[in-house]
């Protein structure tokens, strides 16, 4: 039951070509919608019925998000795709751009039609130059074939689509930072409300969705919301791409139904590397609290199960760590990341992420103090939930997860000025 949605073309030769996409019935959904002048509400209802939750990390129901847009508001509206893919451990959207760009394009045009937008932007992280070129080529193909542009299929509906290239800033994955970035500014998140659905790109109503969310749309409409929902489990409709990496044999991206046991996913990825034992798993990108390996082995990969275990499914980025890893070092690296990537506007995040990193770094380098763990705990409380965007939470959660499950390793470090492992 793998590869049903975003990866359903993976068996094809050069699947990114328009020709190949069309051979599988690509753009037929769009054509039907436009020719039939399908009521936008119907599309949105279908997306709602599919149980699709945003694949960018927050898991917000996509259909509900779309329904916030007032189609009849005067002026422009925008569809923005988030291909910034910056969460450490995540590398799935790159594959969509590289291997299935047309499905994303079709999804964006349909989204545009559904919310009454006539223009879309795909924000691709700056380092993804090759995927960007692949996507640009697909845009060219789609334009010449009449799937983008004015008066599509004679319906009177216009839709332009462009890509915008980032330039190295994790924070631009945050949706409002991303909008600021398209507007030619620093990627500093906006305070919400107002939400993008009311005040988005250039001040106009805007929906922002992850690459995978948008690329799922054509298949959902083709096969029906109920079908999609049925792939997954309660509260976690559909199948999802999981980027799995770490100390495993065959890291990669796998599309599997939500609710699949983690152990199966690990098996698909070849299991642990030779001679290594699973120690811990970060189940949803580096901001998701880490879980011990044995806990993970009993979990299924869906929003509720992971949340119940005290972490989150996030973007579906699974990092598997074996027992050769020092958790202090792992946390030090992650804390360094959030400190480096804080946009700098909120006091708790700007000052707190730097402080967090420095304290973990002290512990790692043998200069830790007994009171440091309480200090770390306390700091995370003062950062999480008190900032403009969720980067503050993203920086705090890994610390909380580590201190919850691997506190002893930190204590050992502080006391013995060296590592418990290795």
């Amino acid at each position, binding site marked *: 039951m793998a590869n049903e949605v975003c990866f359903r073309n993976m068996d094809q030769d050069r699947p990114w070509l328009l020709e190949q996409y069309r051979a599988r019935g690509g753009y037929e959904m769009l054509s039907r919608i436009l020719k039939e002048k399908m009521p936008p509400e119907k599309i949105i209802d279908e997306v709602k019925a599919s149980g699709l939750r945003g694949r960018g990390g927050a898991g917000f129901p996509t259909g509900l998000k779309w329904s916030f847009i007032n189609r009849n508001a005067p002026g*422009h509206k925008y569809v923005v795709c988030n291909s910034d*893919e*910056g*969460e*450490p*451990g*995540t*590398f799935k*959207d*790159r594959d969509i751009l590289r291997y299935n760009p047309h499905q994303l394009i079709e999804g964006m045009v349909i989204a545009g039609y559904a919310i009454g937008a006539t223009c879309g*932007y795909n924000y691709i*992280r*700056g*380092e*993804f*130059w*090759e995927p960007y070129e692949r996507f640009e080529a697909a845009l060219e193909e789609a334009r010449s074939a009449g799937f983008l542009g004015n008066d599509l299929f004679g319906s009177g509906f216009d839709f332009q689509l*462009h890509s*915008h*290239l*980032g*330039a*190295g*800033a*994790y924070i631009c994955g945050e949706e409002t930072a991303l909008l*600021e*970035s*398209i*507007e*030619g*500014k*620093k*990627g500093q998140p*906006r305070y919400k409300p107002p939400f993008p659905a009311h*005040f988005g790109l*250039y*001040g106009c109503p805007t929906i922002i969705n992850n690459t995978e969310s948008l690329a799922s749309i054509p298949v959902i409409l083709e096969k029906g919301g109920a079908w999609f929902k049925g792939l997954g489990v309660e509260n976690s409709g559909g199948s999802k791409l999981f*980027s*799995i*990496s*770490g*100390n495993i044999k065959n*890291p*990669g*991206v796998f599309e599997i139904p939500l609710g699949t046991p983690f152990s199966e996913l690990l098996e698909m990825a070849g299991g642990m590397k030779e001679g290594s034992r699973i120690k811990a798993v*970060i189940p949803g990108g*580096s901001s998701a609290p880490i879980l011990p390996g044995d806990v993970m082995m009993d979990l299924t990969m869906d929003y509720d199960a992971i949340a119940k275990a005290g972490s989150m499914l996030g973007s579906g*980025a699974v*990092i598997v*760590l*074996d027992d050769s*890893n020092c958790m202090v*070092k*792992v946390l030090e*690296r*992650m804390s360094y*990341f959030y400190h*480096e*990537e804080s*946009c700098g506007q909120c006091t708790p995040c700007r000052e707190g992420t730097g402080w967090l990193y420095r304290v973990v770094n002290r512990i790692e380098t043998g200069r830790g103090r007994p009171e440091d763990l309480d200090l770390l705990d306390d700091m995370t409380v003062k950062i999480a939930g008190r900032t403009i965007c969720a980067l503050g939470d993203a920086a705090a959660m890994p610390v909380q997860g580590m201190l919850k499950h691997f506190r002893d390793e930190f204590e050992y470090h502080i006391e013995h000025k060296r590592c418990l492992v290795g």
Partner: protein
Amino acid sequence: MGFKNIPMSTVKPSENKQALFNAKIRAEIDKWIAKYPPEWRQSAVMGALMIVQREHGGSLTPELMDNVAAYLDMAPIAVYEVGSFYSMYEHKPVGRHKICVCTNVSCMINGADQIVEYLEQKLNARLGGTSADGKYTLKEVECLGACGGAPMFQIGEKYYENLTPELIDSILDGLEE
């Protein structure tokens, strides 16, 4: 209406835009400008900085950013803000090949530290530095979204994954002078 919502364009657009960049660069920037609403020329600033950086040896100077500002009718400080915010813009001269090594978790636990060490020795340059012959600049970067191929680095526009010392040797040998 806060300044977040209005295009921060200058009151008097610069008149002699031709003089700012050569025809090739202008044509490329113009392509970016065409993607956005006409009153939002500044949306093209990231594209423009990228092009200008590439065409000027891989790094930016205040003068180049001033020209971008003039070309896009922006206040220079607005361009400096953008130029200094995103990590792919360089403000010091770089080597002909910029090697961006990911050291984030997935790469780290797959030996990124050894990759860095190997490169530092081979090129006789520290992270953040440039080799004596000016050919390579070594840079530590955050997760590049290719953890499946850890450890990995990026040179120029290309990703190289599943790195080993031998692979690195052959990759560097294959780069133009």
